[in-house]
């Protein structure tokens, strides 16, 4: 390293130390100390043009950092949530794997308001073995021949051992085609319970408070997390279960349901609107905002295109004139009911 480069390094370090001292006085609200430090910093910058130059870029960046609060009414939360999200996704896969633990600690400890931030990038999603981003579809064949298809916004973890093949559905929708292995049952696990299969084909959707199983072929056994006798679910049945209990199975047209998956369509029969919006939100880059309680009473039967969520929303508005869709940017859409005249 040349002497000039070494000088530049130590000048930059000094500039950084000055800025840290200034900010420390500021955050402690010590006006007298701040005035003294500021005067000394100005003298230091005046002493050598290289000093001022080194400080200038750092000061400009810090000004931008502090300016971020202004737009959100003086609140730093949106900026902080955004930077955390960017810092935890901006790394290459290799680095991300090595640093996942550290990033998790960072995300959790920043105490970003949990409800919103965790909904956008839950740590469990970021660290899942397989995951899809909004609107992305993936197919995987596992070593045992089992095939898994993931719809957008989905994440799964896989744990195979000698006794059992476990797939944990962290979020989203999957279609599983289980390869037969009599010695090792295949189990799909969610917070709401277990679905046990030998060799069969089915779809699983993870909703916020329930798991929905759609059987396409053969039979599985469902065990809600709270316990009780396992329930057998057969081809052509749909079963919704929470951790506490399972609803009654409803009939399902297996070939239409699977065909809709292949054509990237969402088929809903008499379901509450928030569940439909959940499914669309997972397909859509950006944020879809809606009040569950206000929309819970609207029941929907429809076939909606999942690859064009803008059109899907328009179709919903066409069928439910009381709905209102407002777009702030392409990445931020609000759905609510229009105020009564």
């Amino acid at each position, binding site marked *: 390293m040349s002497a000039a*480069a070494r000088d*530049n*390094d130590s000048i*930059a*370090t000094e*500039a*950084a130390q000055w*800025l*840290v001292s200034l*900010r*420390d006085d*500021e*955050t*402690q609200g010590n006006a007298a100390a701040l005035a003294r430090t500021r005067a000394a910093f100005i003298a230091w910058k005046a002493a050598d043009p290289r000093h001022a130059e080194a400080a200038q*870029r750092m000061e400009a*960046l*810090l000004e*931008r*950092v*502090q300016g*971020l609060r202004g*737009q*959100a*009414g003086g*609140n730093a*939360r*949106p*900026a*902080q*949530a*955004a*930077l*955390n*999200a*960017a*810092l935890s*996704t*901006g*790394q290459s896969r290799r680095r991300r794997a090595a*640093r996942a633990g*550290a*990033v998790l600690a960072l995300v959790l*400890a920043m105490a*970003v*308001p949990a409800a*919103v931030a965790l909904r*956008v*990038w839950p740590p469990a999603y970021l660290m899942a073995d397989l995951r899809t*981003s909004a*609107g*992305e579809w993936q197919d995987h064949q596992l070593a045992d021949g089992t095939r898994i298809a993931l719809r*957008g916004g989905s994440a799964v973890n896989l744990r195979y051992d000698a006794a059992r093949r476990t797939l944990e559905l962290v979020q989203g929708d999957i279609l599983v085609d289980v390869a037969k292995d009599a010695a090792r049952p295949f189990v799909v696990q969610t917070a709401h319970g277990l679905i046990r299969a030998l060799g069969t084909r089915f779809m699983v959707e993870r909703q916020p408070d329930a798991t929905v199983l759609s059987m396409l072929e053969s039979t599985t056994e469902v065990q809600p997390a709270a316990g009780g006798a396992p329930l057998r679910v057969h081809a052509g049945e749909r079963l919704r279960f929470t951790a506490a209990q399972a609803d009654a199975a409803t009939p399902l047209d297996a070939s239409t349901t699977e065909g809709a998956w292949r054509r990237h369509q969402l088929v809903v029969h008499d379901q509450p609107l928030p569940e439909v919006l959940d499914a669309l939100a997972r397909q859509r*880059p*950006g*944020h879809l*905002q809606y009040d569950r309680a206000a929309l819970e009473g609207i029941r929907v039967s429809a076939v909606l295109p999942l690859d064009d969520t803008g059109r899907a929303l328009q179709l919903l508005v066409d069928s439910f004139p009381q709905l209102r869709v407002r777009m*702030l*940017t392409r*990445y*931020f859409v609000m759905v609510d009911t229009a105020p009564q005249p």
Partner: protein
Amino acid sequence: MHSPIHVLYADHHGWLLGWLRRRLGCPHGAADVAHDTFVRILASRDALLGLREPRAYLTTTAQHLLIDRARRQALERAYLAELAALADSHPGLAPSPEETLAALQALEQISAALDGLPPRPARAFLLHFLDGEPQGAIAATLGVSTRMVRKYLVQALLHCHAATGGHA
């Protein structure tokens, strides 16, 4: 015209588009990234000289763009979601689309400057300069000495200085 970039484009554009489509599962996104990949390569012409593995080079460039894109999307989503939550509880708060865009651009610049910084210095930096937490409080949160917090903060500033074009 048979400049190297034309040859590269003619030979590999379709292949790159297919590769991106499989990665993204979205034809429009794939076309955008393929386009940006060639624009970026065009901007650094000398990289084309003696290119032995054009496809590896293309995928590496496209890979970087995909990561940038994922980071940008995560940043936008988190910012807008949080802003929406704030707007719900503070009805007077209604930033214009222009203000929102300006804030997103500032956030992108800052996140690019912080990229690659280890988590603890990054966290100390945001707590101190964005949230205005005193160094003593950050030391307690991170479970380290105030001296160490100072070290993290200086490290973070030097990292940003280097990332924005300095010699630190």
